[in-house]
């Protein structure tokens, strides 16, 4: 439905990192991808380093627009000074890109799509409705949504990882370890992420966590 929203109202704190405005899902846009991120403090990450060819990525060409503040982008190893009003268009999905805020309150709007194809959301964005509940600390609601997604696609690493995060944060230790183990089995890049992710602080001292990170099979025999 047609509508309006302020970026400052949409942007929600989800875990560490910038506030995320889920613009596409908020308005129900289905023709192109669009999100925005706000870093409240200078030095904060605006765009985590990524490319668009990983398992969770959409292979989109991406347009970044600095809506306010001042950012520094790094694209394909090149540093780009990007004050408010700068467009950075990354055509090649294989290129690494990231951005850091240089001023408090720096905001970036991102639009994306795959050339020559009808738009489909990136796999990672399926998690958006659940991640919203991380922001409000309603982890049971996040788990309910992620369990629904896991039933649809049992081997989606992103869903499994986020489910493990929500379970860790809500004290569901065994479930969290089981789903983290499974996430790392299907996509080993989640190992490095989990090592640094404070969502796993509640279970970090558990031997099961260490064994999941190490990629060892589940010693309890329950399987993943």
């Amino acid at each position, binding site marked *: 439905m*047609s509508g*309006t929203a302020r970026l400052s109202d949409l942007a929600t704190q989800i875990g560490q990192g910038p506030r995320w405005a889920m613009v596409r899902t908020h308005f129900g846009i289905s023709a192109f991808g669009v999100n925005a991120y706000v870093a409240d403090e200078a030095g904060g990450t605006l765009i985590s380093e990524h490319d668009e060819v990983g398992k969770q990525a959409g292979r989109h060409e991406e347009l970044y627009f600095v809506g306010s503040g001042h950012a520094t982008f790094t694209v394909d190893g090149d540093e780009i000074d990007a004050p408010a*009003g700068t*467009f*950075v268009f990354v055509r090649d999905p294989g290129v690494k890109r990231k951005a850091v805020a240089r001023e408090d309150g720096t905001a970036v709007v991102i639009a994306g799509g795959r*050339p*020559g194809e009808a738009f489909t959301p990136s796999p990672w964005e399926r998690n958006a409705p659940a991640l919203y509940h991380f922001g409000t600390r309603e982890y049971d609601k996040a788990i309910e949504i992620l369990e629904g997604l896991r039933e649809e696609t049992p081997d989606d690493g992103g869903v499994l990882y986020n489910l493990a995060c929500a379970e860790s944060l809500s004290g569901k230790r065994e479930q969290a370890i089981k789903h983290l183990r499974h996430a790392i089995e299907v996509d080993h890049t989640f190992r490095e992420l989990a090592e640094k992710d404070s969502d796993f602080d509640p279970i970090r001292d558990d031997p099961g966590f260490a064994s999941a990170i190490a990629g060892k099979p589940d010693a309890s025999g329950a399987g993943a």
Partner: protein
Amino acid sequence: MSEKAYEVAHIDELDRFPVDDEGLLWRPVRRRLGITAFGTNAYTAEKGDERVVEEHHEQDGAEELYFVASGRATFTLGDEEIDAPAGTFIYAEPGTKRGAIASEPKTTVVAFGARPGVPHEISAWEEIFVAFGHLRNGNEEEGRKAMAAAIAAKPDAWQGQFNAACFEALTKNRDAAIEHLRRAIELDPRAAEYAQKDTDFDWLRDDPEFPV
């Protein structure tokens, strides 16, 4: 357009093409950066109280999202009037009438759009807007080149020939105006109906060879 891995442009570096007499400046973003997966443009009103988004609805089924990048605008969205300071998103479904008037000087709105369920096609109107933009900026020959490119991209579309006829009428090129209009009418008789109402042709109406 070179196929670099990435492109960078600041909004102040984009072309500024006037598209009407109400102060609306079109700033092509998609065209400048070579984006093909979706449409995107910026629009600027230098003074307050000028149009910054044309009043229209999307006849081809495109979803559109507007982001107020600087200044402030009053949007019309269907029957609603919305105060939209910098940092506001406005989403319009295809059938919803929308438009905006700047309420502060130097208001810029960035628009994103595409049609759901189909690969994005670059709008044929872009080069026609460029042509008239060059003309309004006093660059007649650049405008004529852009118009030729618009016709070459869709040679069987009457709209290209019709707009070329308007362009030549505005620049007082009698023979070229009549030739383009004749070709437009051959492609689609609706061109004659439009030509009857279009004041661009007023000075040509009494010409014995005017084809309407």
